[in-house]
């Protein structure tokens, strides 16, 4: 308990067009505006994004952030296989790996929190909203931002007229996340099914 600085570093990655940077931006905004913390956002353009991988680095902290780049993430969110391959080693041993279940096949070396965000977005009729579903999921399974802050940030960041749809997508992801946590807890207690 010596120096408990509450600082969490996040890498959100996927391929161009998935709304990765917007997801990072909403996360940072939620922390700063809703939860009144410090946050930074670095979007990587440049050579590394050429392979199709796109990346947003977010830091959320109680104190002023001196250096905005993330080397080793507390939370790594991967929405494509290539992004996963590229960033899978940039995660702390105790960090969280979060993936799109249908788009990423992890190597099985660590525990994963996965959600079929793209499929769920398609079921909602908007593939583009996969990032918002993912955001809802991340909000539920991690301690990065509060639900209220995340919702407000979604509401103010998405194009006018699409708020309701996006909030619905957020709820989908969030509830999936809560179910996932419940499932993990139950499995840990040895209860996998309904019949003992």
């Amino acid at each position, binding site marked *: 308990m010596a120096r408990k600085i509450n600082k969490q570093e996040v890498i959100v990655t996927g391929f161009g067009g998935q709304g990765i940077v917007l997801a990072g931006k909403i996360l940072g905004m939620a922390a700063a505006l809703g939860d009144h913390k410090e946050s930074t956002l670095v979007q990587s353009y440049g050579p590394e994004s050429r392979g199709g991988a796109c990346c947003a680095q977010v830091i959320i902290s109680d104190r002023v952030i001196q250096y905005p780049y993330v080397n080793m993430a507390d939370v790594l969110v991967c929405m494509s296989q290539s992004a996963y391959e590229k960033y899978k080693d940039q995660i702390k041993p105790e960090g969280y790996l979060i993936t799109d279940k249908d788009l990423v096949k992890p190597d099985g070396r660590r525990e994963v929190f996965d959600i079929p965000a793209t499929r769920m977005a398609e079921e909602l009729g908007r593939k583009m909203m996969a990032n918002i579903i993912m955001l809802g999921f991340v909000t539920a399974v991690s301690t990065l931002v509060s639900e209220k802050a995340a919702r407000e940030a979604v509401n103010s960041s998405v194009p006018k007229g699409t708020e309701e749809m996006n909030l619905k997508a957020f709820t989908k992801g969030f509830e999936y996340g809560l179910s996932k946590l419940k499932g993990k807890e139950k499995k840990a207690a040895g209860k996998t099914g309904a*019949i003992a």
Partner: protein
Amino acid sequence: MTKRQQTIPEPRNRESVEFGLIMENYNIILFLCNWGPHAAYQQLQDNGYQIPPEVKMVRIPCTGRISKALLFKAFEMGADGVAIVGCNSGACRYGSGTLTAENNTEDTRSIIDLLGMGKERMRLATFLPDESGALKTFLADFCEEIKAMGKSPVLPSASRPPETSGESVRQILARYDANSCQDCGKCTASCPLALSGKAYSPRNLVSDIIRGNDTAGKINADIHACLTCGICYERCPSNVNFPEFIRDMRCILNRDGEGSDRTQPHGGFFQSLMRTMTSPAILPDRWKWLPEDIQTDPDGKILFFGGCAPYFDAFFKKHQQVNTVDIIADALRLLNFFDVRPRLMEAERCCGHDLLWSGDRTNFLRLAKLNTEMIRDLGIETVITACPECYHTMSLEYPKNGIQPGFTVMHLYTFLEHEIDKGAVTFKPLPHRITYQDSCRMNRMEEIRDLPRKLIQRLSVEQFREMKDSGLSALCCGNCAWTGCDAYTKALQVKRIRQAHDTGSDLMVTSCPKCQIHLRCAMEDPFQEAELKMEMTDLTSLIARTICWE
């Protein structure tokens, strides 16, 4: 039959109880076989022995002839105890009488036990002609025990004023706009009873009633034959709600004493059971079978309403392997799976569906009032049930009959779809090819057709195929509200089961416990058993068995 019923005593004298007089009249019915034990009984009388005054003896030809319905009816009419006394097993003049009586007694005892009346109120004993001493001890003993238990909590429904107002046939014709019938015959052409060859035509029935023909005889019988399945209503161009029209006609006939007990299968046992539950003092003990792994919350705001499955299982124990309480247990397990620990109502009564649909509105209203009052007193906000009839009745019929529940009624499938749709759960593979039997209450009356199918699509089965008649045109399981079971409904059931086999399935999935009971009954045909047998499971159980966290 009527003579015998007259020998069953009048309902006990309430006034003497109310005025606090200790002189309580106990009524103990003794069904006494004409052969062995009657000789012993006579010997007692010949020897000047005073039979205890509370014992009312009914002389019968054989204990095996006293059905569960007759045994139970004695309690319904206010008996405090019932003894059935016959010959020793080997001495039965007809061979199997005593054995039948043993079975009937055992089943009836478990049912009065579920009702919380105590199974000790019923006894079976056998005596040889020369065992008058033993018979004397038995009678004294039994009277002693019944008095120690106190009066029966049953308040005979016939002793109370009816709860319905006088409605005329005319009013009912107007309500369902039956006069707009175009005589097109689409109803008869789609009616599964007519299609099974029964000389029965909803079209004729409507016009007969419109013409004011006497409701006795054939018309009365037809009104009680309808399955209230609702296919005809789907087809009717004039939108005549035939099943509800029939229901209200039954209520009129019943009110006027023209209700037909003869059309009630199992001797009217179930109607009798449900009427008994209208006694406010009955305190059912219906949850004692609950498996230990199920978690409930005695202070919760969500109530799980179980339905009558425990009574059905007790009644049909020896005929079919019905185990419809499994559906209740599995429904509770599914709620627990999603962290809902519901409250259970100790004194839960029948929802009243079968009484209403067999024409007894008075007692339906009594049940409806008792249930809603008790649920409201517990501060319940939501009632969840897995039974289509309970769901339909509580959510729709209660308000329609002027009883505002004040809580939300939800079918388990709605809850499940909502939870499963959140994600993170999956289903273990189930090595079965399945087909689905629609429940008429959920399918045509509540328009809940797609929901069970959506849940079925989530399962991981080898194959799911619809039967030839499914959804809106699905065939009835052959009975509704324990009214009108005959050779034609049997033919209908056989047709339905064949349709299920034709899908190439090895498992029929049901959503109503009664579909299982009635269809299983048809499968028991000794001549066609091998051809008809098919495994049946309720959708709730199937989900409970295979659901798991991802």
